[in-house]
């Protein structure tokens, strides 16, 4: 994606369009579209979330609670060949009784356009705090998982997934 950006920039310079009043990034992106319409589906037009944005989300979710280690088993590929469809599977250790169960499990990504991926809520009738889905990852990044227990405790786990072809929202 940097190649496209750079290509766009060079074309602009040649035409002497540097004084356009649009912000540079927008102009570069628009130029990139004309230069590489084929690549439009994967074009680098989005601002990616940052680890700081994820930290802010985590702070909102956790408040004063300190996340604990353990109990969460994440099953994510170490290397995802296609960022558009990355299998995500988790299992949180819990007896799943009325008195002691997993209430919710949240997922965040630190280099997607938006930090949130999904939140899952369980009742004790689920029997097992485990679920699978498929997610989009725009680039190599960390997946952060937070599990909220019925007793108020929170567990956290993270795993890096290397992405060879980004799923740029498309």
């Amino acid at each position, binding site marked *: 994606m940097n190649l496209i950006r750079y290509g766009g920039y060079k074309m602009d310079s040649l035409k002497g369009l540097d004084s356009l009043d649009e912000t540079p990034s927008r102009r570069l992106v628009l130029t990139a579209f004309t230069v590489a319409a084929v690549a439009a589906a994967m074009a680098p037009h989005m601002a990616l979330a940052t680890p700081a944005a994820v930290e802010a989300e985590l702070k909102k979710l956790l408040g004063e609670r300190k996340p604990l280690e353990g109990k969460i088993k994440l099953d994510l590929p170490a290397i995802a060949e296609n960022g558009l469809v990355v299998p995500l599977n988790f299992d949180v250790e819990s007896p799943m009784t009325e008195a002691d169960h997993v209430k919710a499990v949240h997922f965040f990504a630190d280099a997607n356009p938006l930090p949130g991926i999904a939140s899952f809520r369980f009742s004790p009738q689920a029997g097992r705090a485990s679920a699978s889905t*498929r997610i989009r990852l725009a680039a190599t990044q960390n997946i952060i998982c937070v599990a909220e227990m019925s007793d108020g405790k929170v567990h956290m786990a993270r795993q890096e997934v290397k992405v060879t072809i980004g799923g740029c929202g498309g």
Partner: protein
Amino acid sequence: MSTKPTPRVRVPAQAKKDEIIEIKTLISHEMESGQRKDAAGATIPRKIIKSFEAKFNGKPVFSAEWHPSISANPYQAFFFKAAESGEFQFTWTDDDGSLYESKNKLTVA
């Protein structure tokens, strides 16, 4: 956007009491993320299924809140502890307010 989203659900027809069964669901939907732009540079508006809920005999079992980073044709699998016979009700909620539903019976022997 083309066809109406069609849910597909796999629930075992029968289970033993207290057996933990896996339920697999899939729904056809393009999950337009709101991040893409068309050839003219205009943003394609977001249109995703934002939530999924599973109830058994009217009681919530599992739910998911999905953000745009859920893949197209969202797949969701989860578990259920079979205690009694009854019926599952699965509901998917679209950004535009549409609801997609599926009902599946379970017999506990």
